């Protein structure tokens, strides 16, 4: 990846982060270790999933709530919910 910093893009967006109450959770982190290609670390448009040694780390602050991770996870290992009412991404234009 030619060094496109996803943070620069996400910085333009407006988020109301529901502090320490993330709306998405990896059900069983061990499963991710056995996952060969870990597509979530590539397909998430906000780069919320990053690979760390064997594990996958999920930080939901920049989540765009698109649902991709839930659908592409071959082991259905993502517990995916909408954030609490009024929290999460708030599109200024959409």
């Amino acid at each position: 990846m030619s060094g496109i910093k996803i943070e620069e893009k996400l910085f333009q967006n407006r988020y109301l982060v529901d502090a320490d109450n993330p709306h998405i959770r990896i059900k069983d982190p061990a499963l991710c270790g056995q996952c060969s290609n870990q597509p979530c670390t590539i397909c998430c448009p906000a780069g919320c999933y990053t690979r760390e040694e064997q594990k996958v780390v999920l930080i939901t602050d920049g989540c765009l709530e698109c649902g991709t991770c839930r659908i592409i996870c071959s082991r259905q290992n993502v517990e995916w919910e909408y954030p609490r009412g009024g929290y999460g991404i708030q599109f200024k234009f959409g």
Partner: protein
Amino acid sequence: MSEETQAPAKKKRKIVLDERLQAYKGVWVFVEHERGHIHPVSLELLGEGRKLADSLGAELAGVVLSAPGDEAKEYCNTAFEYGADLCYLMQNEVLRDYRNDPFTRGLTELVNTYQPEILLLGATTQGRDLAGSVATTLKTGLTADCTGLEIDPENRSLLSTRPTFGGSLLCTIVTLNYRPQMATVRPRVMAMPEQQPGRSGRIIEHPLAMVETDIVTKVLEFIADDTRDKPQLPFADIIVAGGRGLGKPENFQLIWDLARVLGAEVGGSRPVVQAGWLELDRQVGQSGKTVRPKLYIAAGISGAIQHRVGMESADCIIAINNDPNAPIFDFAHYGIVGDAMTILPALTEAFRQKLATLKQAG
């Protein structure tokens, strides 16, 4: 003043000062003190006030409100050594601890009697509390958290510049046909002037006709901050910060080692706090603390904008990162491309020697 509904004055409104206000002369600085010593912001303001007084050809005065006792005289002497020509001194038992009522009454009394054209206060919890009620009592203009003060040569009025809209913009505020022109300034914004030992000035005492029974609000007690354990990043002068580039929580020890030698506070980027390597109070950046230290050493921090907005106004930023095109190198003052795990210990050692040599020399 609310910016978004106010269109900047199109034509320059000619500020014509009516007769009564022409008499307002001189620049005053409210000297804030707490348990025996003057708050540094008041000294910084005396430095700034000196410049304003000189360009106005007027006198610079310190204003001291305190309980009876020699301490007050000490405050005046210190004010003279930082540039004041004279001090207005008001002493009364009701002024022992800061309370809004007596201090507002006292300062308003002095202003109405000796009529300054400019009154500066530190933007501390005390200064802002006092400035708000004094400005309302005097029905005059007040600009808060100024980052720049200068005199408009055309009409001798004060031009106060301050950040607005969350700091992304600056605006210049003018006080129209009202005196005194009041402004507050945050600590560590203006430069600390040189102390001139032995400089003296005259003191003008003025009584405050008030007794304790006039005042409703009582101070039951004062609980000093115990600063030892709570991290004080926003007030730290040197910060050593670590990011995910350090790889493992164990490597963070190298950050603590350097910080101990420098007597610095330890900070970190959001990912390391999220990963649990560091407590939330030490997070620097958009959703953490904003810091303005003199020296900020960042190791293994990429410098994404979310971190940058929290520390870019540090005086000197040193960045250590193994990625040559890490964004932090776009705004740091000095950069070292390399492995933080080897450079940090070297830095710790080099700083230890530097401090040793300074000790001998000092």
